[in-house]
């Protein structure tokens, strides 16, 4: 009996909350939030609330074209592959309490790996479309990957270094015990947000999908429902990356100080706090999108290797010093 309950619970986690259904609506809402904020910062009205949903439904209903010379198998399976990878990552990120649905020592590395899958999916999508524009976009995606991934990993591993655990839930429960440590991680937080912008391929780091020069990059040949899945995947990736940064640097769903009362109220409040904090991260990303203009791919690499990586090494040295002196213990 309990086995059946466990299986049902797993299906619920995967498909309803915090899995597919929640991420679908929250991802679309984050796209709306991002576009609306962008519009308001340009002093215009912006899209209505249902806009991302209308885009999604319209793309689902459009004609589905596979180019004649494209690799048909890869072309169709790659969006689903990326989508599945991104959806899996949410199970390891705490949403309503300090524990995630699943956790083990080292799940931080698994989440970082799962969040890298979309970049490679984008590469394969572009490469197997056999379109010149998409192939340039694909190569740029991978070139950019080598720029932002190292500082992003460094920044996300900094909390693991100071908290002494490699599990996201473990880091979060350590944060509850000693929240003052988060002050040390401000530099890592800034590096993580900047390299996240490059990871999501948004302005100013959108050289791989520059629509004015290479007509949309890797996704040039994608139409209809495959494009819809790719767009949804990007939205969900943004949500999950924001959730990861929230869990690592902003204390996740934990409200300081803890509220007294029954457990489920704490969970509900934690969930609201989680939503607010992820929206704050999305706000920072939108801010960067509004303020800066696109940089070239070589400028991005120079910025990553010249500034972000040295700064993250400085952050590491600081944390090693703090740990060896026994401060903040």
């Amino acid at each position, binding site marked *: 009996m309990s086995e059946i309950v466990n299986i049902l619970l797993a299906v619920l986690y995967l498909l309803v909350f915090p899995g597919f259904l929640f991420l679908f609506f929250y991802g679309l809402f984050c796209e709306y939030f991002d576009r609306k904020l962008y519009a308001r910062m340009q002093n215009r009205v*912006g899209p209505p609330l249902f*806009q991302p949903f209308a885009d999604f439904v*319209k793309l689902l*209903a459009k*004609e589905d*074209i596979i180019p004649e010379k494209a690799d048909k198998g890869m072309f169709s399976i790659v969006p689903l592959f990326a989508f599945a990878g991104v959806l899996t990552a949410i199970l390891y990120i705490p949403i309503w309490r300090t524990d995630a649905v699943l956790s083990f020592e080292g799940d931080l590395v698994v989440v970082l790996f799962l969040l890298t899958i979309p970049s490679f999916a984008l590469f394969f999508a572009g490469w197997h479309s056999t379109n010149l524009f998409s192939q340039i976009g694909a190569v740029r995606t991978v070139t950019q990957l080598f720029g932002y991934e190292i500082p992003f990993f460094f920044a996300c591993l900094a909390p693991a270094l100071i908290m002494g655990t490699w599990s996201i839930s473990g880091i979060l429960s350590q944060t509850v015990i000693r929240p003052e440590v988060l002050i040390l991680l401000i530099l890592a937080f800034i590096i993580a947000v900047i390299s996240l912008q490059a990871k999501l391929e948004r302005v100013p780091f959108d050289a791989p999908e520059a629509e004015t020069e290479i007509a949309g990059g890797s*996704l040039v040949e*994608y*139409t209809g429902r495959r494009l819809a899945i790719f767009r949804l995947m990007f939205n969900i990736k943004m949500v999950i990356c924001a959730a990861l940064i929230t869990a690592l640097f902003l204390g996740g769903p934990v409200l300081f100080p803890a509220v007294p009362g029954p457990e489920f109220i704490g969970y509900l409040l934690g969930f609201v706090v989680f939503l607010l904090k992820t929206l704050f991260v999305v706000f920072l990303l939108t801010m960067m999108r509004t303020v800066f203009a696109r940089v070239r791919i070589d400028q991005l690499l120079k910025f990553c290797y010249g500034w972000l990586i040295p700064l993250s090494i400085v952050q590491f040295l600081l944390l090693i010093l703090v740990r060896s002196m026994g401060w903040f213990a």
Partner: protein
Amino acid sequence: MDLVKWARIKSPWVLHLNTGGCNGCDIEVLAALMPRSDVERFGILLQGSPRHADLIVCQGPITKQMRDRVVRIYEQVPEPKFVMAIGSCACTAGVFQGCYNVLGGIDKAIPVDVYVPGCPPNPAAIVDGVMKLLTKLKES
């Protein structure tokens, strides 16, 4: 009204295509896409690739050399697709009518849904053209 039709009306993505015009209408189309007229409130987004677009916004008369390319780009856009002819040249070939290298208006090569005359038309007129197309779609 069913969901798909509603979604189509609410999210027309635009491809900007110059078929041989003088660049005057291009600038007006870009002006229409700028924050001042804020077409994103109607869900209009500029797309780089014909594969992502629903609405081809054409400017200029069709030159004989451009004809095959225009037809090819039209065929690359997935169904359902719509075409707008922006400016007098796109509607009738305008002052270039009868030139040795000009075929005529956009409708000589591909079917056109909305004509926006003017040399060049005002950005507000272009947005109004899109709205007329969407109204037509709603009533169909």
